[in-house]
């Protein structure tokens, strides 16, 4: 019964085919021809690259001279003559067999040699072993990691925190997780190398503004606003970010955070704060530059810091609102694709946080020492102090440069060597000269830690003064 009905319908259909209107049949014919054309057309690319003729190719091949695999460099390049440190880089450091007072490592709170931190690390070593052998998503998440994230979020008074296993990779993964091609980032000229690499990886438009110059930043933001008004549909899709460091590593100055927050709300951009040097240094309880200025932490969208300075551990963390940090768990490249932090370092960081929370007095002690040595080092002939009085890592630059960077570097190296002979360990600030966007002038970096006594600070200031007088005059 069904088949008969179907056949009858089919017959009707075929009948209708003969009575079809002409335009329809023509259209169908065109479509069938189109199908045949599609089936037989070759694949081709839309934009052809300019083709070189065979002769041109041969010419180019003949002209090419291979560069040496290792370019020739002078024998006294700093990478070839490094100082060897035996023992931990704590307060007294043994450089090339000579015992010196350490003014070079970023060990601000002296937690590197702290027996409690070491005990916690050893206990965790016995419990978990050394490494995690896996990224966070692949059996690399231990309870110490979750614990550390919780503690950091509570300490910084944010909703959530996320841990990275390498301090450099923290900000270099956090920036490309949010800012993609077509977004605009306003960044300071003196931003550290990690920020520059993160910006390069994100492929966004970078607008540099002069260091700590809010008027320059406002000018750039205004220009961007005018462009946005010309093209509102594009503006709705582009995201705008401001990246600033709390305490700049290259200059030792603090960023003007209240003005940044004002600009943020005026021009609708998002702030990423990089607190590597200011975490555990600024503020009453060591919470960083937001506590220092008294700004609510909800105003800042993302705070990223590395634990290698004050916390004397390895790795870095980002903290902020929940939905901001959660995004990094899938799109932070350094989080998903590299092994997680070894649990002994996480336990050491937790213990260091405990110490920081228990005696908040060390932060004011550190500030005192910074101010003292800052005053003591003023007025050295030939060297000027670059950095704020509150910053524990500041630079000594030559007052009048000799004109060539190499000679400056050599002079400063002499000063450093002489200081090392008198058992004060200093170091020059090193940069990858070809890769930095805005290369800072060569300088000696002096670091103040809580462990240095006042008399050691006085001695260091005196030594530097004498050595500078001897070398530069």
């Amino acid at each position: 019964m069904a088949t008969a009905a179907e056949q009858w319908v089919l017959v009707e259909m075929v009948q209708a085919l003969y009575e079809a209107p002409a335009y329809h049949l023509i259209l169908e014919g065109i479509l069938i021809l189109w199908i045949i054309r599609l089936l037989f057309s070759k694949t081709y690319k839309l934009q052809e690259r300019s083709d070189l003729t065979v002769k041109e190719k041969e010419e180019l091949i003949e002209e090419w001279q291979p560069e040496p695999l290792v370019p020739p460099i002078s024998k006294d390049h700093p990478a070839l003559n490094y100082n060897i440190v035996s023992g931990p880089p704590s307060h007294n450091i043994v450089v090339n067999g000579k015992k010196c007072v350490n003014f070079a490592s970023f060990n601000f709170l002296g937690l590197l040699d702290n027996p409690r931190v070491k005990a916690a690390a050893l206990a965790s070593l016995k419990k978990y072993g050394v490494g995690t052998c896996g990224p966070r998503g692949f059996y690399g998440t231990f309870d110490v990691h979750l614990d550390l994230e919780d503690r950091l979020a509570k300490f910084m008074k944010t909703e959530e925190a996320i841990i990275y296993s390498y301090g450099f990779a923290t900000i270099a993964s956090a920036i490309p997780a949010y800012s993609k091609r077509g977004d605009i980032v306003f960044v300071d000229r003196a931003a550290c190398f990690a920020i520059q690499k993160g910006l390069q990886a994100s492929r966004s438009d970078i607008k540099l503004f002069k260091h700590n110059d809010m008027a320059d930043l406002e000018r750039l933001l205004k220009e961007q606003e005018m462009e946005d008004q010309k093209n509102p549909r594009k503006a709705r899709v582009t995201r705008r970010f401001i990246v600033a460091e709390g305490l700049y590593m290259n200059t030792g100055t603090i960023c003007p955070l209240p003005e940044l927050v004002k600009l943020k709300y005026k021009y609708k951009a998002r702030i990423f704060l990089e607190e590597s040097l200011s975490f555990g240094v600024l503020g009453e309880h060591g919470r960083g530059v937001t506590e220092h200025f008294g700004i609510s932490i909800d105003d800042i969208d993302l705070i990223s810091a590395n634990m290698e300075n004050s916390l004397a551990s390895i790795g870095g963390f980002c903290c902020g609102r929940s939905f901001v940090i959660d995004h990094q768990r899938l799109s932070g490249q350094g989080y998903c694709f590299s092994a997680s932090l070894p649990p002994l370092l996480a336990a050491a960081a937790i213990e260091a946080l405990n110490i920081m929370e228990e005696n908040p007095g060390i932060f004011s002690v550190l500030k005192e020492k910074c101010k003292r040595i800052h005053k003591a080092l003023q007025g050295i002939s030939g060297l000027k102090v670059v950095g704020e009085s509150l910053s524990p890592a500041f630079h000594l630059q030559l007052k009048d440069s000799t004109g060539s960077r190499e000679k400056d570097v050599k002079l400063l190296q002499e000063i450093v060597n002489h200081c090392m002979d008198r058992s004060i360990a200093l170091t020059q600030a090193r940069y990858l000269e070809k890769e930095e966007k805005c290369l800072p002038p060569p300088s000696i970096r002096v670091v103040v830690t809580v462990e240095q006594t006042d008399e050691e600070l006085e001695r260091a200031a005196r030594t530097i003064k004498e050595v500078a007088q001897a070398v530069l005059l």
Partner: protein
Amino acid sequence: LILLTPFIPFFSIPVVWTLTNVIHNLAMYVFLHTVKGTPFETPDQGKARLLTHWEQMDYGLQFTSSRKFLSISPIVLYLLASFYTKYDAAHFIINTASLLSVLLPKLPQFHGVRLFGINKY
């Protein structure tokens, strides 16, 4: 899959075929020619952020086999639909309009073209 729709509603066969054709073309238009970018991170560092799926297919190479298949399938559906609707004029208009809306964006001349600035960013 597409042919399951005839059995669900109680419309007549021509309406069912037109409906199938229109729904298929609409879905194809939305997924291939309207939605832009990628739902996941790609190794091309975001170059495809403003490109529809059709433009991203095979990295912009025209007339590859997947593109040919996706161009031919709405045409085949159109031919079947017009056969089953007995070449009725009203159905013809609807089917042809929906076929054109799906075929035109697939032409290589329309690669990256945004008419009237719709869907530009």
